[in-house]
């Protein structure tokens, strides 16, 4: 699980993988949009307690890949297994109930609702006592307080009013709301699609720390990012997408940033035995 282990295995090569069952495993995913190819047969394996980065050029199919994994899209072909069992997510809610929590690139927030309502959407805290159990009242003050704590933890200090509607937040503040949701409620697998794109230097640091914390709690994290330094600093393994297909899986130890960029852009191809599939 530690980086050391995976380096060990990398030597052993791509062939067998570890004995451990991946928490999430996709095989041969294909997704077509009319005549546009989104995914052309992609495999992905994710193990508990690791951070798997997914990188690739714009339009390489990263978002499409994780949408298929999280139930937001149905792949045209291919199978997805969770803990070794084939699953068929009809909706994101199915995936969420199976323990996959996702932050999408286009930030699924309800613009007119305030921060606390968004953070706790579909997971509201009830009032204690009869008000909650019979009248089903939600506990606004508690949600508001916890929201403030989540946001503070993620290093956003400029938020002046916790009751602001999400549509009035700055780009980065809005992104933090979405990330905080996933961080707070993820159970097995957390998928983050470019979670730091709109974030400042410090806020990015906080989010990456959150990612490592989640891993340390034993969760598996998929992190999509265009920021190579961040990826190499945080990821255990790196899944490289290219033109809708999988160009290879490497680790920060086995390859350099330059290698990664070269593979991503097609300047270099990866030999099968260079990969780190675990």
């Amino acid at each position, binding site marked *: 699980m530690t980086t050391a282990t995976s380096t060990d295995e990398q030597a052993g090569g791509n062939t067998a993988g570890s004995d451990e069952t991946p928490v999430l495993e996709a095989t041969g995913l294909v997704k077509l949009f009319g005549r546009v190819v989104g995914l052309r047969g992609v495999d992905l394996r994710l193990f508990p307690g690791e951070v798997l980065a997914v990188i690739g050029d714009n339009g390489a199919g990263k978002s499409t890949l994780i949408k298929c994994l999280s139930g937001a899209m149905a792949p045209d072909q291919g199978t997805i297994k969770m803990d070794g069992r084939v699953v068929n997510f009809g909706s994101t809610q199915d995936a969420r109930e199976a323990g996959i929590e996702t932050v999408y690139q286009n930030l*699924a*927030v309800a613009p007119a*609702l305030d921060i606390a309502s968004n953070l706790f*959407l*579909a997971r509201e805290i009830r009032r204690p006592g009869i008000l909650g159990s019979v*009248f089903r009242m939600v506990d606004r003050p508690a949600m508001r307080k916890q929201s403030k704590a989540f946001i503070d933890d993620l290093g956003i200090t400029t938020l002046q009013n916790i009751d602001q509607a999400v549509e009035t937040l700055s780009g980065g503040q809005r992104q933090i709301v979405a990330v905080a*949701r996933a961080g707070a409620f993820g159970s097995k697998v957390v998928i983050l699609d470019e979670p730091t794109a709109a974030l400042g230097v410090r806020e990015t640091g906080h989010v990456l720390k959150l990612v490592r914390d989640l891993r340390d709690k034993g969760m598996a994290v998929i992190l999509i990012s265009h920021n190579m330094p961040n990826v190499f600093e945080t990821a255990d393994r790196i899944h490289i997408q290219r033109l809708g297909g999988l160009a290879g899986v490497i680790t920060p130890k086995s390859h350099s940033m330059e290698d990664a960029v070269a593979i991503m852009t097609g300047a270099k191809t990866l030999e099968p035995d260079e990969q780190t599939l675990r």
Partner: protein
Amino acid sequence: MSQTASTSPASVEDLLSRRRSPAERIQHVLHGNPALSPLIVLIAALIVFGIVSEGFLRPQALSLLVQQMAVVGTLAAGQTLIILTAGVDLSIGMAMVLSSLVMAKLAFGGMPSFLALLIGIAVAVLTGLLNGFLVTKINLPPFIVTLGTFSIFTALSLLYAQGQTIAVNPNSFLLVTGRSLSIGSVSVTWGVIFMVAVFVALGFALRNSAWGRHLYATGDDADAARLAGIRTGRVLLSAYVVAGLCVGIAAWIVAGRVGGADPNAGLNYNLLSITAVVIGGTSLFGGRGSVVGTLIGALIVQTFNSGLALAGVDPNYQVLATGILVILAVSVDQWIRKVKG
């Protein structure tokens, strides 16, 4: 530069603290409660009509006004739910007619009133269920669904009632909504009390329950809500069902008003209920609005109506005036919102 940097914050604090004059405080309150700005329009309308026709502000006249809006108000409460989900219910008036016909005909046929009432309300809930099913499961636009069910409910009403209006025994429990309760010098019908209860219950649920939050989120951005883990289909369906319940209560109220049921009673209610919701400040695009606003909207519509009639305006000019007033009311509302920016 550093000059500005040190003086400007002061001027910002100035700006912020200057925002404390009474007028601005009112603006602040308005900002927090968007439903209050139609309230200002309502109060203005009451004052104007009170000046024009002396009788208008007498408690008796006002109590009549509220009685007259009980049906529209209750329907509009249900309509608010649908519109909050970015839908619209064009069938709501005919669904009410169908439900009231069922109640009245069963009671007329000798069934205990209470049972007839329950079955009638069940029919109303079923109409909501049908609309909701077509919207959520078959994924049709609400406009088309309810346009279609409008025809279906109309036809069913006509076939069921055989073109007759049905008069129920005046002592029947079914007509309790038309009976009055004296509170001090004003008398209030049970229908009005039920309408108020509907508003209180829905207002409470929308504001304070998780269901309410989910309804707003679904109407605001259904995709986002789904991705956030809300079962949007279920939420939508529930909105239609609860609206159906409101329709059932409205049917009960209308039964009390007409002493039975009338297959033509639903004609204007579709549009009137939507008008009340929109004048009350709820967005037709979903996700923004409140039932309090709707209540005020319904009162505004009824005030215009009764005020002009009481003033004895020629009906042709009444129509003209209603048109102008509706536009004026919303303009003023818009203006208040802009000023308070």
